[in-house]
């Protein structure tokens, strides 16, 4: 009993690389710990990207099964497990979307549907929750390539390096995409504020 507790404590404190090794050897507890550590990140990322809990669950499961696969072997020397998992999740999502070509085209198209710029007007007070809701919607409506950067860098607080590794793009691209995404959200936010101000005037 004591031994088991001790072993469990040791396992909980083990590095991702050690746990991964143990999981490859068939250690179910190691896999469970890895899931507890990183399952949330993968699930949140896929949920934000897919906006569908069923898809998010499916992809999350596939990502963790990929940990045991030989094809996408995780190499601890190349990066953190969290970024590796996000990279796999992203690939799985793209595979999923490739089954629905039209949707993917719409999602990837970054050229149109620019949010209308709000006209310069007096800044009005806006209920914070309304602004938050507007940005939430704005994030969901961002093209995939911008949304994934926002989710990783802003919502998951990953560094640019980590996000670049997970998304397999250069750091410069991460920066520029994040800049574009924020610009869009800012426009949206200003527009919402203007709308709110107009609404209060109408009342």
């Amino acid at each position, binding site marked *: 009993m004591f031994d088991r507790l001790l072993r469990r404590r040791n396992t909980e404190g083990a590095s991702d690389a050690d746990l991964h090794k143990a999981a*490859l050897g*068939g250690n179910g507890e190691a896999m469970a710990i890895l899931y507890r550590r990183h399952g949330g990140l993968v699930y949140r990322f896929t949920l934000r990207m897919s906006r569908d809990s069923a898809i998010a669950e499916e992809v999350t499961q596939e990502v963790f099964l990929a940990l045991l696969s030989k094809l996408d072997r995780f190499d601890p020397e190349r990066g953190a497990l969290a970024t590796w998992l996000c990279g796999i999740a992203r690939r799985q999502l793209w595979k999923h979307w490739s089954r629905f070509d039209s949707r993917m085209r719409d999602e990837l198209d970054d050229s149109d549907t620019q949010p209308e710029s709000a006209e310069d007007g007096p800044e009005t007070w806006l209920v914070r929750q309304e602004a*938050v809701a507007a*940005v939430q919607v704005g*994030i969901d409506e961002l093209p995939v390539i911008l949304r994934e950067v*926002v989710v990783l860098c802003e919502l998951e607080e990953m560094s640019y390096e980590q996000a670049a590794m997970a998304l397999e793009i250069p750091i410069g691209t991460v920066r520029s995409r994040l800049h574009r995404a924020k610009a869009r959200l800012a426009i949206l*936010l200003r527009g919402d504020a203007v709308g709110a101000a107009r609404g209060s005037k109408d009342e």
Partner: protein
Amino acid sequence: MRNDPLADILAEIGREHRTTEAPRHLAARLREEERPSIADSPSWRLQPRWAWGVGLTIVALTICGAIAWQTQRGHQPHNRQNQKVRSIPDSAPVPAPQHVRTAQLYGKARTQQTAVRDKIRKATKKESQADVTEETLADFIPLPASEGLPPVSEVSVVRVQMQRSDLRQYGFEVPAELAPMIMQAEFVVGEDGLPRAIRIIR
């Protein structure tokens, strides 16, 4: 509170976002599905060693068997066709031909036989006389047509199927009633490709 309202809002959304946990039921499903596949299991990794060991043993046994069989086969006297006649001992007795009847039919065979045998002996004398094989040319009848041919250092035995009438071209006399009969014979052929002696098989 930061000056940038968007950054503020994003931070708040992020805090809320990070409270979302992965579904617990997925953990149980993963536990079921994560059982290591056969290809990943350590026991499977050992199996190629077993396979290699068994495979190598089989190959080694096969090779040994093949060598033993070849050795045994090489000693069997039936495989005489195209065998090199390495040497003839000087002291080898010269038994009478098995096909005495044939020999008698062809007249002066006995006297010529000795002469050709001497030639063959001379040809193979360079080789060690101690190296005696099971082969002898005792049963062969010298071909009358080979009289005057130069001595040879190496001879081969070639088995052929032919009509008895063909013997005439080698200097034998063949009775008309026996001429159309088919027979098997072995020729002693010199290194120059010319036959020196013949033995009737049947």
